[in-house]
């Protein structure tokens, strides 16, 4: 009998509380902290160059094999030439971020990716650098 009385009053109290669900297009909520969105390539803030040297650890660890990269050597230094993520395959597991020795990749909070064209999910190097706009934890954004 005691749980019934407890549930009765908690249900009654809930009537006066704000509902936790959001009516999606009308209402906007703040995305939870540490949620995983599209990865972005980090830039070195002093030289404004890509930190990634194209070692390929992320591509090897990726369970879905959605990362493709190519590197070149210039003046005895390894430089990333091409970097591509197919977000149609990506499961946002975050392994690439975890295993990156230079911490050159980071996850943003952007996650709304609906599109009619499948090629739109292939993000090239420049697209991934542009994702820096979405690194702030913000409202639902497109």
């Amino acid at each position, binding site marked *: 009998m005691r749980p*019934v*009385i407890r*549930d009765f009053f908690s*249900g009654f109290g*809930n*009537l006066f*509380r704000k*509902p936790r669900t959001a*009516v999606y297009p009308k209402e906007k909520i703040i995305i939870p902290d540490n949620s995983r969105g599209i990865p972005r390539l980090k830039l070195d803030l002093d030289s404004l160059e890509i930190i990634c040297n194209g070692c390929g650890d992320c591509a090897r660890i990726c369970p879905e094999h959605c990362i493709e990269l190519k590197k070149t050597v210039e003046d005895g230094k390894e430089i990333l030439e091409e970097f591509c993520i197919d977000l149609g395959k990506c499961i946002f597991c975050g392994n690439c971020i975890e295993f990156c020795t230079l911490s050159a990749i980071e996850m943003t909070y952007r996650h709304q990716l609906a599109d009619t064209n499948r090629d739109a999910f292939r993000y090239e190097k420049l697209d991934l650098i542009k994702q820096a706009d979405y690194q702030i934890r913000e409202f639902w954004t497109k």
Partner: protein
Amino acid sequence: MITIFLKVIYIFLIVGINLFIGSYVVNKLAARSEHRRGFTAGRAGGFGYPVLKMFKYLEKDTKLTIWEFLLLFFSFFIWAIIPFSPWLVLIRFDADLVIALLFYIILLFLFLVNSSRSSYGMIFQNASKKILMTFTFLIPVFLSMASLILINRTLTLKEIVGFQYQYWNIIYQPLGFIVFFTYAVVQVKMFGLSKTNIIFYNENIEKEGSGFGWLTLRVANYIMLFFIIVLMIILYLAGWQNLYFIDGNILFGLKFYIIFFIILLLDRATPAISDYRYLVSINWKFMIPLSAANFLITILFFILRNIYNLI
């Protein structure tokens, strides 16, 4: 003639508006007690949603079987003998409490038959179990009503309300009221307002009864709960009697919605019944002993007072 016509319109309006509000409240209360939103479409917090839902059902299928037609007819005809106020009653009987109960039993029977009719033998077998189950729940209700009639010495609902001008019957018969209230809660649990109960519904109800027939079933479900609450108010909570300066008709509505809210909240607070044995234990271990004790106490009181002149 015009007054009768007016009365019919008034009763239809009262029942219709309360059906609309009831279906809205059931959804919203079920949702808000779980931090959800409930109806949102249909403007103004989803207030127009019950009407939209009605059209949705009608759009699917408009055919009615004879059982469903009778169910719809009786769910409105049942209100002909229930007095909402001293003058707002269509048919007057001396023993209208008995007629009201008879109509209620007919509605219950039609509801059960409608939910049990199927071409599958297994479902047809379950029908007898369901009927037995629901009608044993009427035993404690009858017992508590009998002790109430012993006190009031009348079978007319209007006179029972008149009897309570000073003290409400709930003061004389608290155990009877508890039994009645438990019956209302159990009925909601059995027939399921906010969610369908698998025991008391047809197994193929979602496939075959999604049209007008399903709508009649829902209406009958609400009407049976409304009927029990109204009967409870008339028998135990003084019906349309004024309380100090508050008007009786407003009080009637207030009492109705307070009990309706409490029953719905209790429906949310208790787990769903998916076994006959729980229902049997509720009936035979709680309701019937309580009502029998109430009946015995009442009889003992009258024996001691009238025969031995002790009280």
